[in-house]
């Protein structure tokens, strides 16, 4: 988890304005608050997590990313982060559009369904992959729209979204997690 934070944090410029969508218990926000910028806030759907963010002294808005991003004006943040929740939305395409509307840049991370262990699991066991990053069974997973690094890259190309796309084909096999910096 820490490693992912490091990579995300490195993508963010000092003292920029940041929104963490689906900020969970605020771990990543706290890391960014302490190391990169004080101007950060989160949007979180879980009441329990909202309380944990408040405990940490973080600014958090209880809300649903699928409905509540529309209240933020165009380009109101330098960066909007979406960490490992894209696959859980009913309408991920709409969420991506909203991220790119309200953020000058968006940082999206996804659990990579193209990771070799995931591929091997399905190939050899013939059951839906369960890994440390994808711990749920098919019947109780919150993940509705799984994709691979390559899928996400193809999507961005198709929609003319700029993406930091170095070596993504290699990473599609060897990375558990895809981390993208995208902009319109």
């Amino acid at each position: 988890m820490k490693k992912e934070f490091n990579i995300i944090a490195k993508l963010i410029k000092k003292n920029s304005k940041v929104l963490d969508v689906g900020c969970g218990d605020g771990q990543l926000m706290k890391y960014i608050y302490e190391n990169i910028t004080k101007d950060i806030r989160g949007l979180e759907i879980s009441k329990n997590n909202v309380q944990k963010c408040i405990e940490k002294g973080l600014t958090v808005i209880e809300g649903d990313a699928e409905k509540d991003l529309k209240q933020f004006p165009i380009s109101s943040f330098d960066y909007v982060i979406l960490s490992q929740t894209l696959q859980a939305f009913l309408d991920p395409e709409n969420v991506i559009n909203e991220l790119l509307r309200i953020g000058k840049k968006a940082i999206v991370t996804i659990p990579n369904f193209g990771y070799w262990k995931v591929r091997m699991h399905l190939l050899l066991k013939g059951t839906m992959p369960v890994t440390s990053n994808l711990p749920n069974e098919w019947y109780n997973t919150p993940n509705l729209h799984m994709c691979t690094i390559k899928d996400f890259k193809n999507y961005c190309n198709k929609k003319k979204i700029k993406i930091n796309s170095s070596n993504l084909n290699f990473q599609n096999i060897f990375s558990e997690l895809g981390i993208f910096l995208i902009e319109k």
Partner: protein
Amino acid sequence: MNKTEKVKNLIIDKPLKLDCGKTIVNFPLAYETYGQLNEKRDNAILAFHALTGDQFAAEINPITKKEGWWSNALGPGKAIDTNKYFVICANVIGGCMGSYGPSNINPENSKPFGTNFPVITINDMVNAQYHLLEFFKIDKLFSVVGGSMGGMQVLQFVSNFPNKSRTAIPIACTASHSAQNIALNELGRQSIMADHNWSNGFYEENKKLPDKGLAVARMAAHITYLSKKGLQEKFGRKLQERDDLKFSFDADFQIESYLRYQGSVFVDRFDANSYLYITRAMDYFDLTKQFNGNLSKAFEKSETKFFIISFTSDWLYPTSENRDIVIALNAIGKDVGFAEITSDKGHDSFLLDVPDFLNAIKNFLNTSYNKKI
């Protein structure tokens, strides 16, 4: 009631122009304080009370001998920790706990004002209380906080005085009183006015108070402070000290008896005309309209950090209306947090021991206070 010894009064000698057009001057504002103002004078919190509250937010109310209305939240070691913060709470003008209100004497005829008292607004209440900052030589408050009508005062305060508070916590409130809110208040007012003793508001001369009307107003309002589920769980169809229905109009059910009791104790501590004036002030509250339909404009000049709180079972000031304030603040990039607290206790949740709520306030205040440089 001999209030004079127990009530601290600030006489405001600067003229205050009311929204109704009249100007008042040399009028009393009753207040109470808890905790100590520190040397830097940066730990002061102004707490605003709701419709039937008063300045005695914590400890034992010296007039009613009951616990202060916000004893669950406010006091030493509590969510609003008076070991740490200096809390000021004032009785709103129009009220009946020592501040200028309809039971004050009208100098023109040496009789109580009654309904000759000017109609006041939330804006007027807040402008009157602003004088407390000068009185205590506080340049900037640490926080303004309040629930229900107290929350409306928080919003109006930040709008009127954008940089006079570092943080603001409006709780279970609205930026604009809804038709349902107005309807319920009108029900209360009509019940008071329907009491023969009300005498168009000049009952103090007759020494007969419109207690029945005021009690019914309180009963009706009390229902709106609770949730259906909360009522059902607490009372259900339980009978009051009887084994069976009496086939009469006695209080057969516990809920009837409870409401009658709430009504009867209320009239001992509250003035019927104050009830009319304060509910009117709430009904007139429309911060959005004050800014020509754009609520964001109310907060444009403010650097205040907001934390807005609503409750799941509050149908009087529901989450959606609280969220509208969040949306208005986000639309202009202001620092705003928001939490909807799960509670079955309805609108009254902000007065009760609801741990998630109290923890949220405590954590917000303490982390915000420590963050300052």
